[in-house]
């Protein structure tokens, strides 16, 4: 009989893989954020390393390119004293025709303890989690359009750091939401943490209407979307989307949905501006906003390392 248990949790309800924020209980999300707070202070120490993953091997499996996410996972694993092996899978086994599960079986034979997986196919990390040995843990570092849970969690850490309480907030997510796994993870996390007002802002071609079913307010008007917001999450406009018929041009997009000081003035005076990076200056965000006093884009990067340390140390300490 098929188990209905959340594949991320063991029988005691403890986190053993991080695959998606969807379906995670609020207390686990909060535990990750609290633990990240502890790890943030490790940066202030003379020895910026703790031995929790000493003797463990973390394999970074990036079937899709990403320098930033891979690097922050690598730093996080190293700060936990793990041995980190980076595999540029896109250029090796997959291109030679090896199946995903064969790759995983081979790496498991090399005594991997944790896989950090980025894949262009939604669900690939689930497949790996279902087929790897019981002692192996899997972290989803972004799968297709589905989820990017550590980005969602670091966004929640950033919001909590600057705004303290989730239950009074208005959060606007702006841009290419239809293709964004970050947006999906953010929406699940914000909902789980009790944010009452979540807005998805962008043109009709990039903001799916079915988001309303997730309790999100869909706005195709930028002014309406960010008016009175406490938090504005700008998404990267992916250049590869430009080729289709989804948008007239980058310049046109910036005119309507690009975040300028003028539009930012509609948000709350103490609003924070976030972006998962890499930013396209002059496409989705004006330089003066990206570098301005409301921007918390660089703190997001710093918090991202602590959040990834938290996730890896929590799952590594729980048995399947």
């Amino acid at each position, binding site marked *: 009989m098929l188990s209905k248990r959340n594949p991320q949790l063991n029988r005691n309800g403890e986190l053993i893989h991080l695959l998606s924020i969807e379906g995670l209980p609020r207390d686990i999300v909060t535990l990750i954020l609290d*633990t990240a707070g*502890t790890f943030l*202070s490790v940066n202030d*120490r003379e020895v910026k390393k*703790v031995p*929790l993953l000493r003797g463990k091997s973390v394999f970074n499996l990036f079937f899709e390119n990403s320098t930033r996410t891979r690097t922050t996972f690598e730093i996080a694993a190293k700060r936990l004293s793990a041995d980190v092996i980076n595999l540029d899978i896109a250029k090796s086994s997959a291109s030679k025709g090896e199946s995903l599960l064969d790759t995983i079986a081979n790496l498991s034979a090399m005594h991997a303890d944790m896989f950090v997986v980025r894949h262009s196919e939604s669900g690939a990390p689930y497949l790996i989690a279902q087929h790897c040995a019981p002692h192996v843990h899997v972290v989803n570092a972004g799968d297709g359009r589905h989820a990017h849970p550590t980005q969602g969690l670091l966004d929640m850490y950033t919001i909590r750091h600057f705004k303290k309480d989730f239950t009074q907030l208005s959060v606007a997510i702006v841009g290419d939401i239809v293709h964004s796994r970050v947006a999906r993870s953010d929406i699940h996390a914000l909902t789980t943490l009790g944010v009452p007002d979540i807005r998805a802002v962008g043109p009709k071609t990039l903001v799916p209407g079915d988001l309303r079913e997730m309790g999100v307010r869909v706005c195709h008007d930028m002014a309406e979307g960010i008016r009175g917001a406490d938090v504005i999450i700008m998404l990267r406009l992916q250049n590869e989307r430009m080729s289709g018929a989804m948008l007239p041009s980058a310049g046109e997009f910036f005119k309507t949905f690009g975040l300028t000081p003028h539009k930012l003035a509609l948000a709350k005076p103490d609003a924070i501006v976030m972006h998962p990076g890499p930013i396209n200056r002059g496409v989705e965000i004006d330089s003066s906003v990206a570098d301005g006093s409301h921007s918390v884009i660089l703190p997001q990067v710093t918090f991202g390392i602590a959040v990834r340390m938290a996730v890896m140390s*929590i799952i*590594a*300490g729980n048995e399947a």
Partner: protein
Amino acid sequence: MSALQLDAEALYTELLAGVRRLLLPDVALVGVWSGGAWLAERLQRDLGLPGRHGVISSALHRDDFGSRGLAAGHDATSLPFAVDGRPILLIDDVLFTGRTIRAVINELYDFGRPSSVRLAVLVDRGGRELPIEAAYAASRIVLPAAQRLSLTRDDAGGFTFSVREAS
């Protein structure tokens, strides 16, 4: 003496006197989270020491991480002074196997190289599994290994001991 007869407040008075005798110039008190941190806070005040006491957590150096995972809700280490070259006096409520103190010493060294590290505790209950001893213990008792002895602090700041059977 059985655990239930332990008068934590009376023992604190003895600890205060014992710690006073251990004080070196420039010593920094560091309480082991959580019971030791409460004791260090009160000792810092009652001894009239300048500055703030330190708090240290064993969570990131525990030797049972592989089987027990990361302790939920643990508090972070906070050492509001430079550790390098400083004599450190660790304070804890109960000294048992010595494993927490081993972890805490590792944690301490992540912040620098102290000139010395000593330990003062409210209760030494024996059962050591590592070569670690307290420079001062306000009380020495023997308890069955399955019993967990821990300090609790009430809203008024008063100390009592609680005993429970380990799960």
